[in-house]
Structure formats: structure tokens, C-alpha cells
């Protein structure tokens, strides 16, 4: 009987989508356990934690992201139908959405202007380079829209996507603190705010932690913010003197 050497086995495994798919699921399951064990703190959010574990793993075994993504794309693909499925909770709570339409639209406008103005203002003040600045601008929008906007206004699309992800995890970590500080308990307000400031991350967090009502309004905020920002941001960057 021939026994394959370890490096031969590794060559086979590392080129196979099975390994990264399994690693992703196991890392997530482990992250959920760890998060539960430390009392569910948003500072160690399961998503942030599993991303950190997987990046460490990939760096240790020296696998590049493209190889990893060949397996992980099967999970990534489901984001599409999951986004479409957000219509279901939205439909369930349609009466409430209709009743609150104007407050929601106004809050959305206020949130977007705050996000973009504070981002551009702070980054300019701290002396970030122009490309960085323009990649930061769409950071609170879900990544496919953010990449498109960044390209349009002269930023770097892939950097924008990375910053969007960081914003998402920071938003989930800061959210509960801010809500406690402002004494906000309404799941509608919490969900909508998370969806606006932290896009899909916030929506996923709202579904997992705050329930279906918060999730529905979070998904609504994510969609609205994406749509409105695509129109507002090019105007605002011009206002700040770019492009």
C-alpha cells in the first residue's frame, strides 16, 4: 500500500473547494460558540471573529484569497437570494412601514448626510490621501453599491469594499452602546439605524439579536440608503470640492 506524503495531500486539498468551504462553516460555528461563551458581547461579533480566524488561518497555511474564495463562493452566492428574501419581513410589516414612511425617509436622509459629511470632513482633517478619501465616502452602503459609487467618484472600488466591511463590524459593535446612551429601546428604531449605518452586517445583526421586526426595518434601511446614496453622494463630493 502506498501512503501519500503530507505535502502531496496538501497540494490536493488546498486546490479543492471543499477545504475552504468546510473551514468557513467550522470557523463560523466556533465563533458563535466563543461569542456565546463570553456573554454575546458585540465586540467579539461572530462575523468579525470568524473573519479574523480565517484570515489568520490563510496567512499561516499561505493560501491566497482567490484560492480560498473558490470554495467559499458557494456561501457568498447565497447573499443574492437572501437579499431578495428581505422582501418577506418587509411585506409582513408593510402597515407599519406605510405609517412611518415620512419619519423613515427623513431619518434616512439625515443619516446619509451625517455619514458622508462626517467621513469626508474627518478624513480630510486627518490628512488621508484623495483616493482613500473617495473610497471612504460610500462606506456605510452595502458593498456592491459602494464599489459602483467609489468608481464613479474616483475612489478605489476594492478598497471601498474593504472599508464597507470594517464599517459593518464597527457599527455592530458600537450600536448597542449608542442605543443605551440615547435610551432607545424601540426595535424599529434600532433596526433601521443599524441597517443605515452598517448595511448588511447591521441587518444580519438585527435579525440575529433583535428579532424579525428590527430585521425588516434594517433591511428597508439598507435598501433605501443604498438607493439614496447612489444619487446623493456624487453631489456631496462635488460640494466638498472633489471631481
Amino acid at each position: 500500500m502506498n501512503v501519500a506524503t503530507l505535502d502531496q495531500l496538501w497540494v490536493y486539498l488546498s486546490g479543492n473547494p471543499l477545504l475552504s468551504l468546510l473551514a468557513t462553516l467550522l470557523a463560523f460555528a466556533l465563533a458563535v460558540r466563543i461569542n456565546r461563551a463570553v456573554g454575546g458581547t458585540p465586540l467579539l461579533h461572530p462575523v468579525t471573529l470568524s473573519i479574523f480566524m480565517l484570515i489568520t488561518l490563510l496567512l499561516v497555511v499561505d493560501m491566497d484569497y482567490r484560492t480560498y474564495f473558490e470554495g467559499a463562493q458557494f456561501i457568498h452566492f447565497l447573499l443574492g437570494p437572501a437579499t431578495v428574501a428581505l422582501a418577506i419581513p418587509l411585506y409582513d410589516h408593510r402597515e407599519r412601514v406605510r405609517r412611518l414612511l415620512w419619519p423613515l425617509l427623513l431619518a434616512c436622509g439625515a443619516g446619509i448626510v451625517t455619514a458622508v459629511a462626517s467621513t469626508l470632513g474627518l478624513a480630510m482633517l486627518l490628512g488621508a490621501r484623495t483616493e482613500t478619501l473617495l473610497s471612504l465616502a460610500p462606506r456605510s452602503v452595502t458593498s456592491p453599491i459602494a464599489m459602483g459609487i467609489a468608481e464613479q467618484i474616483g475612489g478605489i472600488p476594492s478598497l471601498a469594499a474593504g472599508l464597507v466591511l470594517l464599517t459593518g463590524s464597527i457599527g455592530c459593535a458600537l450600536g448597542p452602546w449608542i442605543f443605551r446612551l440615547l435610551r432607545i429601546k424601540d426595535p424599529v428604531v434600532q433596526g433601521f439605524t443599524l441597517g443605515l449605518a452598517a448595511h448588511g452586517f447591521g441587518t444580519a445583526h438585527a435579525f440575529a439579536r433583535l428579532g424579525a421586526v428590527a430585521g425588516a426595518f434594517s433591511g428597508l434601511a439598507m435598501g433605501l440608503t443604498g438607493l439614496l446614496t447612489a444619487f446623493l453622494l456624487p453631489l456631496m463630493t462635488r460640494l466638498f470640492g472633489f471631481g
Partner: protein
Amino acid sequence: MPLIMGMSMLLACQFAGELVARGLTLPIPGPVIGMVILLGALMIRGKVPSSLRLTGEGLLRYLTLLFVPAGVGLMVHFELIGADLWPIAVTLVASTAVTLAVTAWVLERLQQGHARRNDRPRGRA
């Protein structure tokens, strides 16, 4: 076959959304347009088919997991982020905090005002 039917409905909406986005060269991603299409279809139909609910709610329950593969992509951007590390870190944290606070505060206020106005015609005020 409820899972198959539900998944087909979701994928069909996403597909239609992609067609609209590409066809009209909109800057909006296909799945977001697909969400609007599905919402419209549900409004017309007046109820959520049980197969769609089963699949859709199953996917939404694991929404956080679905972000992990894209998130690992951060490792590709280490160099770009490292070049402007401090401005980026400070801006992200401070600006996200301000955005959360302003949005929550505005919505909370508007909602309270809205509820009061809605109560008045019923003669409770």
C-alpha cells in the same frame, strides 16, 4: 418540494433584478432590485407562499454567515489600508458612532411626533 419552489422564486426575482440593472445600466445591484420586485409581487398576491417563507426565512436566519467569505477579502486590502491606517481607523469609528447616534435620535423624535399626530384625530389627546 417546498425548498425548491421557494429557492426558484428567490432566484427568479434576483434574475429579473439583474436583467433590469444591466439592461438600464443602473448603479443599483440586481438583488436589491429583485427585493423590490418580490415585494411588488407579494403586494399583488396578498400573501406569502409557505414555500417561499420556509426558504427565505431559513436564509435570513443565517445572513451573518453569508458575509464571512467577502469579509475575509479584507486581507487583500491590508496594504492599502496600512498606508492610511490612522486616518481610516479614526474616521471609521468616529463617523460610524455619529451616524448611528444622529439616525437613531432623528427617527426616535420623528416617530414620537408622528404617533402623537396620529392619535389626535381619534380624540385621545
